[in-house]
Each structure stands twice: as structure tokens, then as C-alpha cells.
């Protein structure tokens, strides 16, 4: 039952992100809800589950995009592992640490993803506008997604 709920949350996250980008994009910009979900899951879940969430959400992002298949999966897998290491030293549940983590990890993820894209497909999928603006949009989205996931964890015992 828990697994089924987790699959539903996983698919729901992807569909919500797709819907948002199709309908609520502002000047071609939208928060990366898949990134926000991967970061929130990494903060809330245990190490294995957090990394698994990162991998599968990354795979979903790969399926939606036109970059090399597996690049987002690897990026979010590593991001989840970094979060696992960091959260042993810092309180990642607080609002401020989530803001800092989402901005810094957004940029690190983008740079890593760009590097993978250039290495494996010789394309640079991230424009300057997205590179400069999206981390701040993600910083707004992460606390909201975290709260949703936190409630889901408490009530439905998922993550």
C-alpha cells in the first residue's frame, strides 16, 4: 500500500510539473518541481529511499527532456547522497536551510547536468535565463513541496 502511494506521489509530482510548465510558465520560467521533490524526499526519507527517489525523479525529468537519458537521474542521485551527508551536520528541516540548500544545489545540479550534456550529447540545454532565475524559483518551491511531503509522511507513512 505504501509503495502504491509512493508511486502515486511520484507520478503526481511529474504530472504537476508538466502541467505547471504548460500553463503557468512566466517568461518561459517555472520552478523545477521535480528538483524540489527530489530535494524534499532526500531531506525527509532515509538514505536508500532518498537516493532512490532522486534516481527515479531524475529519470522522469530525463523522459520529459531532450538531453541525454540518465543525466538527470545521475544528477539527482548524487544530489540525494550529498543531502544525506549534509543533513547529518545541519538541520535541513528548517526553512532557511532549505532555501540555502535549494539555491546552492540548483546551481550545482545545473552545472553538473550541463557538463554531462556537453560530454555525452554535445548540447547545452540550459539557457542563461534559466540558469540565473530558476534557482530562486526553486527556493520558493522547495519549502512548499517539503511541507506537502512532510504531511504525506506523517499521515500516510510514505517516504
Amino acid at each position: 500500500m505504501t509503495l502504491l502511494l509512493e508511486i502515486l506521489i511520484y507520478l503526481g509530482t511529474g504530472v504537476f510539473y508538466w502541467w505547471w510548465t504548460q500553463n503557468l510558465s512566466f517568461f518561459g520560467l517555472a520552478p523545477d518541481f521535480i528538483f524540489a521533490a527530489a530535494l524534499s524526499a532526500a531531506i525527509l526519507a532515509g538514505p536508500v529511499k532518498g537516493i532512490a527517489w532522486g534516481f527515479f525523479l531524475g529519470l522522469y525529468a530525463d523522459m520529459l527532456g531532450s538531453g541525454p537519458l540518465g543525466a538527470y537521474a545521475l544528477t539527482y542521485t548524487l544530489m540525494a547522497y550529498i543531502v544525506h551527508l549534509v543533513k547529518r551536520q545541519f538541520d535541513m528541516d528548517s526553512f532557511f536551510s532549505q532555501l540555502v540548500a535549494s539555491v546552492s544545489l540548483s546551481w550545482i545540479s545545473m552545472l553538473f547536468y550541463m557538463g554531462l550534456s556537453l560530454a555525452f550529447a554535445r548540447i547545452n540545454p540550459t539557457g542563461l535565463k534559466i540558469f540565473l532565475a530558476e534557482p530562486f524559483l526553486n527556493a520558493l518551491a522547495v519549502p512548499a513541496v517539503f511541507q506537502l511531503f512532510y504531511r504525506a509522511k506523517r499521515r500516510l507513512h510514505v517516504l
Partner: protein
Amino acid sequence: MSREKDAANYALISFAVLSVLLLLFPASRLAHTARIVASYSLYPSLHYGAKYAHFVRNVPSNIVSLLETDQENRTLRARNKELELQLQRAAVIEADNERLAAAMRLSRYLPWAGAWARVINKDPSDWYGSFFIDKGSDDGIAVNDTVLGLQGEKAGLAGRVFEVYPKFSKVLLLTNPSASAVCSIAPAGMEALVEGRGTWRLKMNYVPEESGLTEGAELVTAKGGILFPAGLPVGTVTKIYPRESSMNFITAEVQPLVNVNTLKEVYVVRRKLPREFSEQEGRPQ
């Protein structure tokens, strides 16, 4: 703690290896086809510009053809809707054309000189009272010129020009409560006054009881009237009211020949009335 750390390391290595395998073997046709079909289902657009060729690389040609067919289908549906709209517009233009052609045919047989004008504005609060036409004093329109409406293949009296401006004019309809016309009842030629009532019907007054008026009698403008040329069809008697005890005449209800609700063009007959008639209204010219 150590077990958790080990689990995290194992998970990281497993998923990282899986990701790298996906990255290293992107040429897998099955994986790429599944990806493009899933991506296309969520975001059905192949307009990726320069990335298009990269996006569909290694995808079997039949799948690409299927997706391109879907794109073509969407484009054709949009084009089909556009053509349907054009067809509807063409039907309206054709109807306009037929109506105008009929009007032009009719105007050749009208014995009066005049000009066609379009109805450009109707006041909802004065629907049966007046409307504006797109011809004015610049086109030779003068106050009290007779306005004819076209109903089928017949022209009938609609009203008269009431106010004239350089580019447009106001027409006082016969259905206006303050409008009237002296009419002759065919075939006897008995004259009576037809007045507007502010509705789609007219009222005929001052008809002698012994006139022999019957329902269905047709009315034309009388020779005795000065404002309108004689012999213009006005309408048909639809109902005759009995004489009231205090009156010496009977009244009748008349269905106007011209339905003002369907008028789009009118024919303005140029009248050369005596100066005092033209100046009587005291309107701008």
C-alpha cells in the same frame, strides 16, 4: 549508523552505475523509442527547433512517422477549422451578394432617382422609431427624402429622411408614433391616414364605415400626400376594428410591407419638395 552509511553507499553506487549505463548506451533503440513516446504523450510537440534531429535520433522511422502524422493531423485540424470559418464568412458574403443583386435589379425598375444606403445604426430604445444610414448631404440626401425598403422582390415605404449630416442621415420610420402617411386603399382608391404606433404594426385612421374596407386590402401612398410619391406599397390591412359609438369612422391594423427588423439597405428617393417642406424640420443639413 555504519549500516546506514553502508546502505547509502550501496544505493549511491547502484543508482549511479544505472545512470551511467543509461548515459553510455543512449543508442538503445527501445529505450529511446519508449522515451520519445512517453515524452510526446505528455508534451505533444515536435517543434524543438535545432534540437529536433537530436531528439529523434535512433528512433525507428515508423515511430517518427507516426508522431509526424499526429503533428500533421493537428495542423490539418486547425486548418480545417480555419476553412470552416472562411466557408461561413463566404456564405454570409454570398447572401449579401444575392440581396444586393436583387436590390440592384429592382432599382432599375424604380421610377424615381435615388441612391442606395446602408443602415449603420439602430437605437435599441427606439427600435421602431428611427435609424441612421451611411449617406448624407455630401451624397445629395435632403430632409424629407423618401426612404424605401426592400422586401423580397418588392420595394415598400420605410420612412423618410428626418435629419441630414454631411456623411450620414437619420431616417424616421413609418412605424414611429409621430410618423404618418396618407394612403389609398386599393382598388377603390379611398384615402385614409396610416400612423405609426412604435411597434411592428401600423394603425389606419379616419376610414368611413361605409368604405367597404376588408381584411387583406393593400395600401399604397395616395396622390394627395405631398411627402411621399404616389403609388408606393405601404402594407396590408390585417384587422378591422368596429366603429366606436362616439366616432363616425372605423380604424384598422396594418401590417407594413417593409419589416424594419430585416432592413440592411434602403433606397433613398430624391425628392424635390418645395423649400418650406425641407426647412420645416429645421434640422442640420
